[in-house]
């Protein structure tokens, strides 16, 4: 860029401050809108996708199809039907399968995870969980609470499904200790119970052995308001650990006396295998078992969420782009008016030796600089508004832990785009100026 022309253009901008600022303002608003909407949108997207990554993108979730929960029985095997020996002997898995269903007093369920593992050799880990709302009471309080019964393997291998299952106090559920309970943070706080105390759930006494740390806050708001899709609600509900209590999966049969429940199975598949093909194999195996469950991969859920949020972002960015376009048209108007007003000045410049391309460059740089100024200021304001907007949105939704994401390409691109758009806005007026006849230009009033 010719520094002398830049100097002259800058002097020109400086000399008509009010109009220049108004023109810059038009660009500023457009750029600010784009930066804000994309940054906040990307921040939300990242927060949601982080949840999926916590669970693992190599996980397939089996959720009951409509009607299944009212007819199926809790999935558990009779003693001996699922022993260590049977898992160890399963050479296809190559390692013991942590199915998480050990001995249970209830009758054999229709869903047989071991059989599924045998039928689908690419399964490496399985965990199960059932959930239901049951009465809960202490000596002083009584009410209802959501009871989750994760298998030990689900806790150990799929903690992301339970919001990380991070203990604030006490210890986790362990095999062989059936009458123990871990409380969610809000439940423990609301009921005022501590480690070692006893509570009654569904008529059965449980000893409190652990209290979870508060779950990550973005989960509820994002999950509740932005993300929809098959399987998504289930794991969102599971990851809300604050308002739930956790008892061993083995105890589900005791608590679920009518045996009607909803449940979910989490499956991790071998790295590198085709998810689609594995899901087909799982479907086939489930059909053979006569179980009505839908498999869906976390990758598919993540893709679905990303696609949905991507569309939202695109729509918002398009709206912002319209405001940028308005800014560009405003700048074009300003530049054309400037050419008309500065016709005599153009004549003077030509009379003292300015070439056509210098006049062209002068006006292009003039509008480009205003575009650049609008871009830089719009970026700065956009970053500020993104933080303010995220904070306000978070407060509105009760979420404080997600923040806007500023993509480097967006920051650099939006400034470069502003300069280019500014220059383009000035292109036609600049070309018009460069073609002016110097004698006529000098005679203009």
């Amino acid at each position, binding site marked *: 860029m010719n520094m*002398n022309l830049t100097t002259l253009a800058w002097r020109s901008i400086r000399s008509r401050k009010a109009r220049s600022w108004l023109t810059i303002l038009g660009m500023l608003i457009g750029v600010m809108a784009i930066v804000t909407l994309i940054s906040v949108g990307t921040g939300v997207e990242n927060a949601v996708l982080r949840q999926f990554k916590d669970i693992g993108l190599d996980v397939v979730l089996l959720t009951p199809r409509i009607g299944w929960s009212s007819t199926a029985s809790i999935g558990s095997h009779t003693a001996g039907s699922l022993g260590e020996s049977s898992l160890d002997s399963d050479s296809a898995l190559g390692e013991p399968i942590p199915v998480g269903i050990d001995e249970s007093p209830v009758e054999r369920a229709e869903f047989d995870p071991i059989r599924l593992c045998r039928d689908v050799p690419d399964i490496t880990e399985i965990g199960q969980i059932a959930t239901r709302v049951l009465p809960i009471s202490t000596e002083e309080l009584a009410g209802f609470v959501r009871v989750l019964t994760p298998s030990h393997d689900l806790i150990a291998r799929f903690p992301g499904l339970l919001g990380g299952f991070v203990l604030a106090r006490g210890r986790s559920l362990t095999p062989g200790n059936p009458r123990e309970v871990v409380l969610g943070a809000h439940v423990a706080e609301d009921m005022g119970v501590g480690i070692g105390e006893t509570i009654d759930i569904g008529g059965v006494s449980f000893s409190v052995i652990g209290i979870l740390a508060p779950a990550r806050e973005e989960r509820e708001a994002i999950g509740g308001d932005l993300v929809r899709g098959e399987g998504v609600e289930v794991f969102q509900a599971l990851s809300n650990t604050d308002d739930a209590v956790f008892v061993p999966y083995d105890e589900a049969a005791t608590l679920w006396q009518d045996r009607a429940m909803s449940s979910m199975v989490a499956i991790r598949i071998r790295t590198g295998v085709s998810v689609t093909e594995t899901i087909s194999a799982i479907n086939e195996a489930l059909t053979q078992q006569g179980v009505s469950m839908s498999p869906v991969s976390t990758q598919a859920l993540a893709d679905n969420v990303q696609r949905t949020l991507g569309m939202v972002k695109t729509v918002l960015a398009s709206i912002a782009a319209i405001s940028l376009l308005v800014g560009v048209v405003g700048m074009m108007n300003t530049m054309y008016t400037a050419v008309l007003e500065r016709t005599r*000045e153009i004549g003077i*410049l030509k009379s*003292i*030796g300015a*070439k*056509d391309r*210098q006049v062209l460059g002068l006006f292009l740089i003039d509008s480009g600089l205003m575009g650049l100024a609008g871009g830089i200021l719009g970026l700065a304001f956009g970053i500020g508004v993104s933080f303010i907007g995220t904070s306000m949105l978070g407060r509105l939704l009760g979420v404080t832990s997600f923040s806007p994401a500023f993509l480097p390409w967006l920051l650099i691109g939006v400034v470069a785009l502003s300069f280019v758009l500014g220059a383009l806005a000035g292109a036609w007026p600049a070309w018009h100026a460069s073609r002016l006849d110097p004698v006529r230009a000098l005679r203009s009033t």
Partner: protein
Amino acid sequence: MISLDRVSKCYRREPNMVHALRDLDLDIPLGVFTIVMGPSGSGKSTLLHLIGCLDTPTAGRIELEGTNLAELSTNQRAELRSRRIGFVFQSFHQISNLSAIENVELPMLLSGATRRTARARARTALERVSLGDRADHRPTELSGGELQRVAIARALINDPDLILADEPTGNLDTETGEQVTRLLRQLAGRGSTPIVVTHNPEYAEFADSLVYLRDGRQVDSLNTSKLEVVT
């Protein structure tokens, strides 16, 4: 030497054609102070625009030291204006949002000089026209005489061969006009060739060479000793 050979210039001014210059033959030697006189519409300004490469003739040749100006491209003419020609206009033609020194340094900046060099030369040029102390003033803060001296400083900054002044005293009082004319006259002795268009016959006494135009034709080209013939 500036040579005009059967130069004509016509403008279309609907519904008629206006012949500003008709088959003009003229030789202007370099290094002398030339005054072009004549009534309004006689073609004085057109002559200056053609010599100054701001316009092209409809017919004929204009040569500046052997170069036919009519054959130059738009860029070449701009280059010539930048390096070899300085303009001074009746209405000063300063850029209002620039200070005096910023106006003066413009031709140098456009010809690619560094800002530092341009600024230093502009300051020298302003001092040459006794305006060193008014360098940072805007055109609105300067008198007519000062504005015209700023214009002369701007015309001088690239050390041009030709200084073309179109009615430089037209907007000035008599005393200031005379000062400006004297200033232009001095330039002739310093290697430049001032060609001044004026209505005022009083300034003819300063001229080494006088060109009188009427209806686009030269009435006579005289040295100052024959001034009384044309006035």
